[in-house]
């Protein structure tokens, strides 16, 4: 059957900061009001709201989406929270898509918020309890462990060196210098800076990692008929995909994200993409750690397995390269307020495809992009394909 066409018609965000004075509700409002303003819509014209937000242990509010509701413009409206860990931000756009595509709504506001700074004594404490409560938590694991274990498996499988990977951090932190919301953009950072940074959990070093961040992002979705009235430049959601692998992560091959590939296949099938490398002009893969961008580019089938580092070294993924990757600056540069960071990627595609990305604008009139996020225990892939 033919599915209803759904477009992104507006986007807004907060500045990404290490510690916001704003409450989570206020952050949600700041992003929401900017998104509505960007497409000159009022909250009365919004029929439903989707909230994406990560672990309640960050903001420090149980059922935190309920608490965030008024800031997200959900007063008196249908309002629903989707949750797939770090994959939530991009998933929320997919969830907004199915709200509108179902025919129940003509418009849907998608808001993602994360305020990590309330968690004490360190926001990483929120990650202590992501592990299996019976047989992993007693070992005292922390978040770095699983990234380091996965990164090492990836490096080992393809014989990669740290410098092959660290160049991603350099690229993204430099790209982010042009992003007005960025927390960590740095035009002058070098490969040496990354490689000389403190070793946290080999092979992970401090500058391989995205920072703890507070922030929010919102986008406005509309059905075909409404979208064309709102803006002459709707950006269509052409494909959505998501996929969750087994929780038994220690039973899986960590060197390749099969769940990302499955999610991408779902989204590409819907978007009619058969040759991703040819048909996609910008990629915003999830980059909370530098190796993750490479891993995900391979999962998205934009480069063969183990070949994304080489493509990066050749400059293909630079903003002016053949396939610009994370022109926004990504999580490594703009910042990583978990769910909001994912939706930031969707917003970036919206701005890039409309030619509104300013100093970050990718040359050559890009027509289609893919945003992707990852989450849980090396487990979930979420993918949105957008085109004009």
């Amino acid at each position, binding site marked *: 059957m033919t599915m209803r066409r759904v477009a992104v018609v507006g986007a807004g*965000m907060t500045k990404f900061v*290490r510690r*916001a004075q704003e409450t989570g509700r206020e952050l949600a409002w700041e992003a929401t009001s900017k998104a509505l303003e960007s497409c000159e819509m009022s909250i009365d014209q919004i029929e439903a709201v989707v909230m994406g937000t990560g672990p309640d242990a960050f903001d420090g509010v149980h059922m935190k989406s309920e608490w965030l509701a008024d800031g997200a413009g959900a007063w008196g409206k249908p309002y629903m929270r989707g949750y797939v860990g770090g994959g939530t931000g991009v998933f929320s756009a997919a969830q907004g898509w199915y709200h509108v595509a179902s025919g129940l709504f003509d418009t849907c506001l998608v808001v993602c918020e994360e305020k990590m700074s309330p968690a004490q004594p360190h926001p990483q404490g929120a*990650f202590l309890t992501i592990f299996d409560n019976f*047989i992993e938590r*007693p070992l005292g694991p922390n978040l770095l462990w699983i990234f380091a274990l996965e990164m090492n498996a990836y490096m080992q499988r393809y014989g990669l060196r740290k410098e092959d990977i660290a160049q991603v951090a350099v690229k993204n932190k430099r790209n982010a210098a042009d992003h007005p919301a960025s927390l960590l953009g740095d035009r002058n950072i070098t490969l040496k800076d990354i490689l000389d940074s403190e070793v946290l959990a080999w092979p992970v070093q401090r500058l391989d990692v995205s920072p703890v961040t507070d922030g929010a992002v919102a986008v406005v979705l509309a059905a075909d008929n409404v979208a064309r009235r709102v803006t002459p430049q709707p950006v269509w959601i052409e494909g959505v995909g998501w996929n969750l692998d087994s929780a038994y992560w220690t039973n899986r091959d960590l060197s390749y994200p099969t769940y990302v590939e499955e999610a991408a296949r779902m989204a590409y099938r819907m978007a009619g993409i058969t040759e991703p490398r040819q048909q996609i002009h910008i990629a915003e893969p999830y980059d909370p750690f530098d190796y993750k961008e490479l891993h995900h580019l391979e999962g998205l089938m934009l480069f063969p397995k183990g070949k994304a580092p080489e493509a990066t070294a050749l400059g293909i993924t630079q903003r002016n390269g053949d396939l610009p990757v994370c022109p926004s600056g990504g999580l490594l540069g703009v910042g990583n307020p978990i769910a909001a960071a994912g939706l930031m990627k969707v917003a970036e595609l919206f701005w890039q495809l409309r030619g509104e990305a300013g100093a970050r604008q990718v040359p050559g009139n890009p027509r289609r992009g893919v945003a992707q996020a990852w989450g849980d225990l090396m487990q979930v892939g979420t993918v949105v394909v957008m085109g004009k």
Partner: protein
Amino acid sequence: MMDQWVYSTTGLHEKDFEAGQVLVETWKGKAEYAWDTGIAIGRFLEELRRGRLVGRRCHSCRRILFPPRMFCELCFRPTAEWVTLAQTGTVNTYSLVHVRWDMVRLEQPQVPAVIAMDGASQGMGILHLLGEVAPEKVKMGMRVQAVWKPAEDREGSITDIRYFKPIG
């Protein structure tokens, strides 16, 4: 241009908090649980107390699943029987961890690893720590064996295995 759709959010520094420049409330409420271990994990923990590692066999795909579960997630049917595994395995991947979760540096690096156990189906690993090995000597594919706490100290916990050490 998109710049106008970025809200100029107010960023604070830690020193703003220390200097009392900003009002805060704190909450140290309890989030305490007592989770039912159930059938599979209950038995797994009990066997650890006895110094044994056990998995579950799926009669449909013939895999021996480890850690054990009462269902096969791929076949979606109950698993059929208990299988005692060897005490040895192979390091699938590892890390040398220098910081605690709150970024405080450790005196000695920890070496977490995913260890695929002998006697379970291929790739059926668990998370544990390596010990009695110099960090620079750790390698992928290294053969290791479980080092147990003394029987009288074991309490039916994954920490009844102190760590895995290289074989030989």
